[in-house]
């Protein structure tokens, strides 16, 4: 066995580390390449090769380097890699994790899991078989997974007598394919992993190859550092209060943040200043954090913020919408369809979603052609161009601008079942109001009293209770009842009937201008909510059935108001005389209640359950949520 063990490259101090994935069609020799690389750099444990050789002799089969890493009995018996293996080696001051990804189509989800961890890829093509469907599919997936650095290895050159023409044809074909994905391979290397040609040492059989060996090419992959130079993205992971400090944690995915920076939270549009960076066993405490780091910060004021928001500077905000278009690969057990609710997870945000449209299935074999698509599903291992619509607005970026906040996964049932990259923001119906709310919130002049201060004082969070449903179902009666009961408890509550705006604030409006009526109502509600009040309101004035002005369907009314008072909590209560389920999703629904006192108690219980009402009020209100 050839070894070229030298003592310098493997033992010098490590200056960085890099994850590299090896991909390629089944039987194109990935595990063999890996085994050869390790053997020829002297990185294998002593006796490992001999041990495997002995097992092979015993079982009467030819020794293969692949057996070094195919750990499972079934993998060795069938001669295929089932699951991705991480292997380690150190060379020329860099620590490599090499991820051996399975090539078999059946194990594509494992290949994707392996490649998703990588910063660079070695893509293998069998010189005898040439470019296969799977080679193209892998190229497409690598570009979707964010692996932009690729070196192509044309393996098994020994089987084509080391012919340069064979190599040149494959190189030309594959380069043309990759260029459609905007990928330029770093190198294309002719090699034979089995014979050791151009792996760790230059091949005497291919003097026409003037480029590097596979080992040399690894050093040419660049570590990612440019992410720190991009604008800040810091998805909020969790909020801790283990001691006196209230620490917001997360991983900076791009850019830098400094103590003293004013940060904006999206989609809630809140803002605060970074007071400290917190760290354990670090002296003196850090004052700056940058892309890649898991950090903790404290803020100058105690604002309500939740996991999933993206923190940024005001000059470069993420996009916000419920809807976006994306390229998605599907790995689920059952096909992706347009009926099933999924969870979309984007950075740390998780929200229910549906697939609003499947535009086309991307054909890896011919990227430029739209495949005619009549069936409305995406099958396992297919790549598709889709529109995703979430139930609540979320903050995100386009993948071409920001890698981490521009991609997402879909969870079906218990499993992460697909991943995608966002290609386009799709403005939804609330887009105009959302932009208005955002600009209004950034320009808002705040006093020294925060919403949290007010919540402690009043014993409840500022919120909106919206009573919806047809006319004459007792909504106003219930609103008055709830208001009276809460005021009797000492809470700060106000009933606002939209009718009250009509002759005053709305006096200049045409009767048919439903959206403007709702916008003004929403802005008034937002103002009152900022005073810390718990607002109770009916929506009769917006009902289409109410004679005097044209209204909007209830779900559109609720969404518009929700957008304008966002991120204050909104409790929807649907009332009707019918026993049929409400035509709109509501937190509570009642049918022709006879006992309004009991119904009012139900509303109060729901407010407590949602963490809006504290258990007691006064100096020490007890909240069921952390402030």
């Amino acid at each position, binding site marked *: 066995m050839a070894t070229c063990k030298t003592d310098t490259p493997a033992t010098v101090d490590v200056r960085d580390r890099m994850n590299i994935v090896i991909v390629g069609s089944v039987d194109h020799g990935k595990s063999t390449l890996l085994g050869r690389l390790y053997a020829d750099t002297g990185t294998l444990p002593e006796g490992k090769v001999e041990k495997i050789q002995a097992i092979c002799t015993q079982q009467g089969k030819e020794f293969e380097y692949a057996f070094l890493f195919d750990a499972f009995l079934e993998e060795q018996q069938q001669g295929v890699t089932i699951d991705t293996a991480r292997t380690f080696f150190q060379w020329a001051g860099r620590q490599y994790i090499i991820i051996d990804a399975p090539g078999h189509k059946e194990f594509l989800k494992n290949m994707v899991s392996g490649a998703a961890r990588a910063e660079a890829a070695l893509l293998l093509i069998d010189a005898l078989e040439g470019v296969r469907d799977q080679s193209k599919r892998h190229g497409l997936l690598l570009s979707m997974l964010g692996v932009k650095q690729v070196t192509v290895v044309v393996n098994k050159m020994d089987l084509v007598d080391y012919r340069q023409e064979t190599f040149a044809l494959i190189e030309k074909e594959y380069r043309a394919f990759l260029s459609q994905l905007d990928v330029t391979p770093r190198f294309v290397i002719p090699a034979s992993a089995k014979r050791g040609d151009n792996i760790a040492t230059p091949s005497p059989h291919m003097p026409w190859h003037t480029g590097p060996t596979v080992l040399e090419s690894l050093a040419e992959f660049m570590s990612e550092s440019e992410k720190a130079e991009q604008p800040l993205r810091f998805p909020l992971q969790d909020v801790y209060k283990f001691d006196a400090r209230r620490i917001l944690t997360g991983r900076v995915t791009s850019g830098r943040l400094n103590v003293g920076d004013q940060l904006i939270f999206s989609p809630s549009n809140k803002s605060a200043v970074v007071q400290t960076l917190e760290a354990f*066993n670090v002296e003196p405490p850090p004052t700056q954090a940058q892309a890649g780091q898991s950090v903790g910060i404290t803020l100058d004021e105690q604002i309500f913020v939740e996991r999933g928001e993206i923190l940024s500077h005001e000059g470069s905000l993420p996009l916000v919408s419920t809807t976006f278009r994306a390229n998605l690969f599907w790995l689920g057990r059952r096909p992706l369809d347009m009926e099933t609710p999924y969870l979309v997870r984007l950075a740390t945000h998780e929200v229910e979603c549906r697939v609003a449209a499947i535009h086309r299935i991307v054909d890896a074999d011919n990227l430029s052609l739209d495949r005619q698509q009549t069936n409305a599903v995406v099958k396992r291992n297919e790549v598709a161009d889709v529109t995703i619509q979430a139930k609540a607005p979320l903050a995100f970026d386009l993948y071409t601008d920001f890698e981490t906040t521009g991609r997402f996964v879909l969870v079906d049932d218990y499993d992460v079942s697909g*991943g995608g990259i966002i290609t386009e923001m799709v403005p939804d119906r609330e887009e105009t109001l959302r932009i208005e709310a955002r600009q209004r919130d950034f320009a808002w002049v705040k006093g020294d009293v925060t919403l949290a201060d007010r919540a402690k004082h009043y014993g409840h969070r500022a919120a909106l209770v919206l009573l919806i449903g047809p006319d004459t179902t007792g909504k106003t009666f219930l609103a008055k009842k709830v208001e009276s009961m809460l005021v009797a408890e000492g809470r700060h509550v106000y009933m606002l009937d939209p009718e009250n705006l009509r002759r005053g604030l709305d006096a200049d409006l045409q009767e048919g201008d439903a959206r403007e009526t709702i916008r003004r109502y929403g802005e008034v509600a937002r103002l009152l909510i900022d005073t810390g009040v718990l607002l109770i309101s009916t929506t009769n004035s917006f009902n289409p059935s109410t004679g005097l002005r044209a209204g909007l369907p209830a779900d559109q009314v609720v969404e518009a108001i929700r957008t304008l008072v966002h991120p204050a909590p909104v409790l929807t209560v649907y009332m009707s005389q019918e026993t049929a389920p409400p035509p709109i999703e509501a937190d509570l629904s009642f049918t022709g209640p006879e006992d309004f006192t009991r119904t009012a108690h139900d509303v109060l219980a729901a407010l407590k359950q949602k963490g809006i009402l504290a258990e007691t009020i006064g100096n020490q209100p007890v909240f069921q949520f952390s402030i």
Partner: protein
Amino acid sequence: MRHLRQLEDQSVYIFREAYKHFDNLGMLWSMGKDSTVLLWLARKAFFGHVPFPLLHVDTSYKIPAMIEYRDRLAREWRLNLVVGQNKKALAEGMNHEKGRVECCTALKTNGLKLLLEEKGYTGIILGVRADEESTRAKERYFSPRDKNNDWDFRDQPPELWDQFKTSFPPNTHIRIHPLLDWTEINIWEYIKLENIPFLDLYLNRGDGTRYRSLGCAPCTFPIKSTASTVDEIIEELRATNVAERSGRAQDEGRGMELLRKDGYM
């Protein structure tokens, strides 16, 4: 140093994801170098706190110095230590002479299963590393186990970017592996960087031997070594080609694959 901070950032992120998603979380601590680095990383992630119990599956055959060290750190770092033991198997006289795989299965795998059953943990954090042995090289950061604790390595869930498997059917649990990307050398480099207290069994204390990996006294053997400082250990490891777990008897043959499929760490 930069590479250690990169590893630390990833491990801390995994810890925080685990803490966010699992109500009933526990972390295995064997007092070895790996799970002690794991413990240190938990303190990093939670700013000096460890907000879940540390579980030790005591086979009763551990080296006594390990137990002293365990109790000292538990006191000093105010840890919530939970010790489990398969008392029934021990009462029936289980030991390594009845077969190493049998003994590991009864006292460690089944000892762990009993502890999980009793406390109902849904997430278990462990310090396994991909470079230790070849089945661990194929693990996920978040790796599901079925109701029998079995690992279905033929059909592991996809793990994309930093989106982990955090939802699971009732009666199953998830094994969480924050150290998967660390190597043995990284562990020692980090112990040095952070000045983490470790058992001196890992050092040559004058007799020309040291332990490279710690387990039960009857099945763990010291290696020949002159390394008496962390720096010397790192230097020794860079030069060696001998597998780390070569002093661990249960790894012989297919031992590890069979043990791990049935729920071994």
